[in-house]
């Protein structure tokens, strides 16, 4: 643990079931679900008609009319979450050199919802191949390049340091935070406003997941549609949301008397080099990412008190990561609680990794492990302790959170208390 260490000093979550960290934690700790029949558009042509939607009013969250107009919904989430995280940290960035504060934003699909809407207009409902630029909105370029999200966040918080979107499919959230951690550790930044966002609930996204039968068709009981590790699960529930964090170098956070939620003690990402959407059942590459993240954190597997799983609720994922936990944690995989909050807030693609880091952080704050909702009859091949149905009081000082994404990305992050001892 030599060198610069990175801690979380502020966070904010926008997730289905209620905007804000407090509403998010109530949902998780009460084991409620926020999945429902799609209301954003007519879902009747689709195989999967359920999603985890946020009731979000940009005005009520301080976005100006101009900000709302020029930003895709995912960008709006990011700005609101980043501002919230900064407020939560109590940090006054104006007192710091602006180029020492950076921004990273994870997103898997960027402004796909805005692009879907604008495409419909310029193509006149798909009729024109030579789409008509005279109907293009002035901010279409912001949708074209999702880096506009990172620009908006930097403007919102006044950051002039390194700034980027990190886009690695469904591990974007973990990898965005991981990228930010590396910048602070190497000395390129002292503070990072880092998080992730996605708002993919649009016809084009529903259609492409329909085509690969990745999302669940269980629309007769939408509130029970997301059921990771259950024997009856048959796909994930698409979600949306954002979580942002203020990350600081440990010593400077201590000097200013900041509230320290957790240290980001270890991070690694590996690729399965196998298939864009498929997973090898042995989980070897995720296991390797976990092993390296633990090693970086200087923690033995037995020190992990809670595993926040990817737990998307597809059969191949649930088995893949169960195998990865056994391979990397050994017998401790059976002893530690493992749960998937996607059972409650759905799968918000690139955002969910950051939202899960927030859940992991709050589990440490409250010493409560969120449950896997809707888990009644586990898949026999998934034989770990998945904390079914109800949250559990549990001493939680170190958490492992993982993600798995299209493209073959497998990422792992370890959160711990900074005052821990090694090994």
């Amino acid at each position: 643990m030599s060198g610069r260490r990175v801690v979380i000093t502020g966070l904010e979550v926008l997730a289905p079931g209620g905007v804000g960290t407090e509403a998010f934690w109530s949902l998780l700790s009460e084991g409620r679900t926020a999945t429902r029949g799609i209301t954003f558009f007519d879902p009747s042509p689709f195989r999967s008609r359920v999603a985890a939607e946020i009731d979000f009013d940009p005005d009520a969250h301080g976005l100006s009319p101009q900000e709302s107009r020029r930003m895709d919904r995912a960008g709006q989430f990011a700005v609101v979450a980043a501002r919230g995280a900064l407020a939560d940290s109590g940090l006054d960035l104006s007192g710091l050199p602006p180029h020492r504060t950076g921004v990273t934003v994870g997103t898997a699909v960027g402004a796909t919802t805005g692009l879907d809407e604008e495409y419909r207009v310029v193509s006149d409902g798909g009729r024109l191949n030579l789409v008509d630029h005279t109907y293009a909105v002035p901010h279409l370029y912001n949708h074209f390049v999702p880096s506009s999200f990172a620009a908006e966040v930097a403007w919102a918080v006044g950051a002039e340091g390194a700034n980027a979107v990190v886009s690695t499919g469904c591990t974007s959230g973990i990898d965005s935070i991981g990228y930010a951690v590396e910048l602070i550790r190497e000395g390129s930044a002292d503070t990072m406003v880092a998080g992730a966002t996605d708002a993919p609930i649009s016809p084009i996204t529903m259609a492409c997941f329909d085509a690969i039968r990745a999302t669940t068709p269980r629309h007769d009981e939408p509130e029970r549609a997301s059921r990771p590790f259950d024997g009856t699960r048959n796909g994930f529930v698409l979600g949306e949301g954002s979580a942002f964090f203020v990350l600081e170098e440990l010593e400077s956070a201590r000097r200013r008397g900041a509230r320290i939620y957790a240290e980001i003690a270890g991070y690694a990402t590996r690729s399965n080099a196998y298939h864009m959407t498929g997973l090898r059942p042995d989980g070897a590459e995720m296991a390797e990412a976990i092993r390296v993240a633990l090693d970086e954190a200087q923690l033995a597997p037995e020190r992990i008190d809670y595993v926040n799983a990817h737990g998307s609720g597809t059969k191949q994922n649930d088995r893949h990561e169960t195998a990865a936990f056994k391979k990397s944690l050994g017998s401790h995989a059976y002893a530690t609680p493992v749960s998937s909050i996607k059972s409650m807030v759905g799968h918000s693609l690139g955002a969910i990794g950051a939202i899960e880091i927030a859940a992991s952080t709050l589990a440490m704050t409250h010493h409560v492990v969120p449950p896997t909702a809707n888990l009644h009859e586990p898949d026999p091949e998934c034989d770990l302790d998945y904390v079914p149905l109800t949250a559990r009081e549990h001493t939680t000082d170190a958490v492992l959170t993982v993600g798995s994404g299209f493209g073959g990305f497998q990422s792992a992050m370890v959160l711990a208390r900074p005052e821990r001892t090694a090994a």
Partner: protein
Amino acid sequence: MTASVVVTGLGVVAPNGLGADDYWAATRVGKSGIGRLSRFDPSQYPSRLAGEIHGFRAEEFLPNRLMPQTDRMTRLALVAADWALEDAGVRPQELPAFDMGVVTSSASGGFEFGQRELERLWSQGSEYVSAYQSFAWFYAVNSGQISIRHGMKGPSGVVVSDQAGGLDSVAQARRQVRKGTPLVVSGAVDASLCPWGWVAQQTSGRLSTGDDPARAYLPFDARAAGHVPGEGGALVILEREDLARARGAKVYGRIAGYGATFDPKPGSGRPPALGKAIELALADAGVDAADVDVVFADGAAVPDLDRAEADALNEVFGARRVPVTVPKTMTGALYSGAGALDLATVFLAMEEGLVPPTVNVEPADEYGLDLVVGQPRTTEVRTALVLARGQGGFNSALVARSAD
């Protein structure tokens, strides 16, 4: 932690040349690849010129099984990665899988694939959308497909920061090499020259609307009125220097320094931050401004942006103290591919001792730059600075140095 990181292979896909050899043969003599768009009829659009790659037949290079699931930018990236590995003399199947990673950038993803699927969705119905739409257009697809093709299981990633992304990806790849991964494929390719991508690009407010390829993209010229977009880029092989030397690899040069900043919000009254990025990159490389032999500029060809870039350069180097060039006047601005291609060009320039020209430009005195125009300039290139900026305020600066 501070292991030296070198480039050992180049894979170039550019409008004025496919492959590093063809590209350099064109670029060193100022041969442009900009012309009227041919992929579709651009008559109805404000901008009609582009840097298109002609004569690229992906099926000659890639397995047939990959064709239905790949956008043009991915095909170009896969071929560029193949060429870069071949150039580096690396056979990935013979190396430990976890010792190789892939970090690329993409500004806008596979837009052409996306347009086709959106068209199917809205004109025919959701059941007509391809299964491959779940990944073929997204920003991570090039890193994913390259890692799969070559069995690379090490740390991979994708950085998106508009035109700054090509350099940012190389910097992130360098971090991974320093953290212990011996080899990382990095760089970027973008290719959004479809009608839907074209219309999105029109709204940047930065595109040239001229019809004469020789007058359309004129950075640092009094006639500057926007840039011409293009497609392509470069992928490069990064390795830890001691390991590359140990295997007897040809070493093009080192990735010596990097700095990135973001401009303050417009209207804040604070100064732009490109100069700071340059200072950070020079400090990271441990070189003085006087050591820099050439600058590959961003060259937006938008007067305010040209002014900001010239001011930053003159503040660091002094007016007319360092040769500056913009070879992208021959390719168009390649979005994330731009910084990566400029980096590859730097190494080709080092190899020959020749700075390629900025074509068609008559430098305006007011910028105070020693712009290499008209003819290439023969000069030893040992240290080069590459600049790339992304819309919104992204500034990235990278210092490359020769390794002998």
